[in-house]
């Protein structure tokens, strides 16, 4: 096997290896299924409950992407304002940091009071949890324009808007995409938390109801499905990143 194929096969081999290790540990230690089910049992549950899992997974995927999309738009815009204006930066930044320090799970009951249980709190939780890294990164990308470059443009007579559109935004793109990779995985955390606390749909709800009936294999099946969706969405974000900001990678093969 040449190196290129090896690199391609590596993630699969490691993942499968982990499952084999898990299976082996369970078999050797004879741990009870309701404490830690073997992967084979988990996959069995996955097949058995496939229709339910699919239904709830699609719900979670929908709330996550909706919240994430809101996060990209809202976080991107706020990031531009903060990065472009020192005044907005000093005014808003402490508030943002404070807001981000609130555990999002504490927010869900409030959201339930406002919107009732179901889809809306999950979308909003995914949104608030994913939007902070986007704001910070976009603002950083804009705020770190080289002073010489700014001088060159100012001495050409460029307006603030021109400096923003010609340099600021293209320059902030790699920062934006780097943050999207973090944000998409965080969005899953947000939506699943909200579904666990306040919903009767979604993977979070499925896992909660499974654990209350001691169907532990189904709980683990839910975890694996969330993880798999996270990996897929991350890969989508990487694909977009490569397409939009290939220049930032300067032809390296890393992260492909």
């Amino acid at each position: 096997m040449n190196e290129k194929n090896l690199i391609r096969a590596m993630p699969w081999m490691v993942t499968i290896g982990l499952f084999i290790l898990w299976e082996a540990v369970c078999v050797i230690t004879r741990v009870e299924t309701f404490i830690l089910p073997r992967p084979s049992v988990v996959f069995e549950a996955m097949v058995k409950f496939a229709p339910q899992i699919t239904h709830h997974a699609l719900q979670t995927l929908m709330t996550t992407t909706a919240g994430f999309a809101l996060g990209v738009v809202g976080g991107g815009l706020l990031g531009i304002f903060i990065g472009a204006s020192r005044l907005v930066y000093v005014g808003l930044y402490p508030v943002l940091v404070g807001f981000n320090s609130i555990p999002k799970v504490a927010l869900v009951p409030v959201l339930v009071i406002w919107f009732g249980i179901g889809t809306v709190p999950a979308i909003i939780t995914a949104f608030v949890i994913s939007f902070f890294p986007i704001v910070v990164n976009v603002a950083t990308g804009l705020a770190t324009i080289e002073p010489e470059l700014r001088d060159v443009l100012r001495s050409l007579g460029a307006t603030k808007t021109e400096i923003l559109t010609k340099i600021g935004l293209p320059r902030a793109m790699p920062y934006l995409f780097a943050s999207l990779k973090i944000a998409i995985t965080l969005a899953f955390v947000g939506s699943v938390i909200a579904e666990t606390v306040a919903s009767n749909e979604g993977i979070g709800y499925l896992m909660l109801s499974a654990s209350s009936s001691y169907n532990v294999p189904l709980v683990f099946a839910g975890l694996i499905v969330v993880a798999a969706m996270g990996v897929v969405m991350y890969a989508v974000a990487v694909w977009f990143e490569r397409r939009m900001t290939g220049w930032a990678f300067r032809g390296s093969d890393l992260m492909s």
Partner: protein
Amino acid sequence: MQGPAFVKINGVSLTYRQAEEETLAVQDLNIDIQEGEFVAVVGPSGCGKSTLMKLVTGLLNCTGGSITIGGKPVNGPIQGVGMAFQNSTLLPWRTTLDNVMLPLEIVEPHKRRLRREKQAYIAQAMALLKTVGLADFADKFPWQLSGGMQQRANVCRSIIHEPRLLMLDEPFGALDAFTREELWGVMQKLWMERRFTAILITHDLREATYLADRVFVMSKRPGRIILSKEIDIPRPRTLDTTFEPHFGSIVHELREHIHSVRES
């Protein structure tokens, strides 16, 4: 001296204020530059050479004296001036050609005409790239170019919009000696073709002597002009010129002055 100066720096000083402390960066600078003249400013490091550049372009406002360009006083960033720094500051998401054409998207009247006369402008930019030997690299990205090539593209970007005034802040400072000397020739050629007014900030005395009509020596902080030296060597100057005794004696004289400044 003939006619009124194009750039007139009249008793200019600048005081930086940081917290309670006041630093005098440059003091009582007087420089008159004719239209189409190439001048160089040399001095020990930290003497306020780059400050002078920011003052002339209006990126900094002087705290004493006045600066006029073409008869108009400089109060804020002046428009349409060309600038090249040691760091080439090319945009990595644009090809060499698009980088060179950036000023055309900002400076009037090119900005207005760019869309309609795109092909003509591209031809113009390509011609300029050809002059500096970059024609084959127009579609490459800056990070695919060598340091010398990046600096050539940087120089092209600074003059594509035909500025009347070009500011060069150690544009060849980060290059190896051979590339640097090669670019002196490129710079001289561009200047002889277009005759813009140029102010070169450098610490390389041979570079100043090769390129400039007049060299100003600045003292250490607070920076003042302590010598104004006409370079009476005919153009075009070549690398051979730099080995002639007359060239050597000018460099030597400049060196002496810098030395005495550093000692004092």
